[in-house]
């Protein structure tokens, strides 16, 4: 367990007055407040730290104890434990201090707990005055082929199994809100929500841009020259294509509606763009060389 420098966290001097501490705390709280920094874990951590620092430095009794023992806090532990116990007896349920400012929405550090004996303000880590249940955040890693079709999946969130429908066409990095799948509300309040962020990895031969898919198709030299029929892969099957005689390398073919499904628009798909990549034969046999040379001479005439 490491010593925590609360003065450093609040960016104040050790001699800072009560007003200076309050001001510093307010300023940092405005900067790192979770409501102003949604989905920012770093800000959330910082916010917890400044709340803990404030809990100590803004209460004269806590601050004095912190200053007295400082980095030698470990020696204080035993003595304080017995003192704390006595206090609990005297005050009943009430702990050593009452929560000023506001609750940080999480537990305090081990350092804090060992020095001040845990949090006294009730609520078990809940934000003050919260009626609606806590919102949960979760991340779901999927493969691109998983999100080609709408499917159901069972997730375990905070030890509870929930079954959700993942709509086709969910994008990488997209966040969806699943109402009522968060924590229980208090005093009959509504349940919290679940915010699910999707990470979609693409290990296919197709590139995805919005709803359109892009891929290359190998085309043999002879089909390119003379035309013909080839089979190409689409995302979920195969398709027959007619190749025109004299097809150039890099020619693009657009297959309407063969792209990726559009999120929440059933039956709507993007397009598939195929680019022909003409394969030039290598390791020619003597006979082939002879014939190609003949062809070359014919062209020059």
């Amino acid at each position, binding site marked *: 367990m490491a010593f925590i420098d609360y003065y450093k966290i609040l960016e104040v001097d050790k001699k800072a007055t009560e007003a200076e501490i309050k001001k510093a705390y*307010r300023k940092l*709280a*405005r900067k790192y*407040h979770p*409501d*102003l920094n*949604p989905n920012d874990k770093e800000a959330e951590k910082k916010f917890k730290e400044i709340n803990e620092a404030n809990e100590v430095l803004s209460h004269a009794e806590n601050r004095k104890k912190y200053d007295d023992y400082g980095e030698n806090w470990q020696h204080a532990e035993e003595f304080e434990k017995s003192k704390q116990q006595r206090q609990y007896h005297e005050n009943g349920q009430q702990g050593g201090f009452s929560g000023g*400012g*506001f609750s940080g929405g999480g537990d305090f550090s081990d350092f804090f707990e060992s020095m001040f004996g845990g949090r006294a303000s009730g609520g078990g880590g809940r*934000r*003050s*005055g*919260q*009626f*609606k249940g806590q*919102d949960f955040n979760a991340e779901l890693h999927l493969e691109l082929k998983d999100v080609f079709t709408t499917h159901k999946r069972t997730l375990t969130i905070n030890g509870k199994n929930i079954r959700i429908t993942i709509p086709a066409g969910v*994008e*990488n*990095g*997209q966040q969806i809100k699943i109402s009522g799948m968060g924590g229980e509300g208090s*005093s009959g*309040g*509504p349940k919290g*929500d679940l915010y699910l962020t999707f990470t979609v990895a*693409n290990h296919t031969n197709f*590139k*995805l*841009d*919005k709803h359109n898919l*892009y891929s290359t198709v190998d085309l043999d030299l002879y089909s390119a020259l003379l035309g013909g029929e080839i089979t190409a892969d689409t995302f979920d099957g195969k398709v027959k294509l007619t190749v025109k005689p004299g097809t150039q390398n890099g020619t693009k073919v657009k297959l309407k509606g063969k792209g990726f499904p559009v999120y929440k628009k059933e039956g709507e798909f993007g397009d598939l763009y195929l680019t022909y990549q003409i394969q030039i034969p290598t390791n020619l046999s003597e006979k082939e060389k002879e014939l190609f040379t003949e062809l070359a001479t014919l062209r020059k005439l």
Partner: protein
Amino acid sequence: MKMENLIPIPELCILYTVELSFFTNLSEMGLLEIKTIESKEYIDSDAIYEIEKIIRIHKELDVNIAGIDVVLNLLQKIDGLHNELNTLRNRLRLYES
């Protein structure tokens, strides 16, 4: 209209320890829709998330209602930019792989 989705404002005032006028002011600012049924005022439970956020910003950061309106507008703007950034990032992946 389903009554079960409606929460009486006086109940919320007790829960959040705010004045009745707080909700009226929010409504005047266009941040909240108050529903009146038989001269009783209610709030749709879907709005709770937003209300709790507003109350936290108001109480914990000492921001007045006009300030909250500004904050919420900016947050909405950030959200839009975040979505755009995500789309652009996905598009960039096309060229990086």
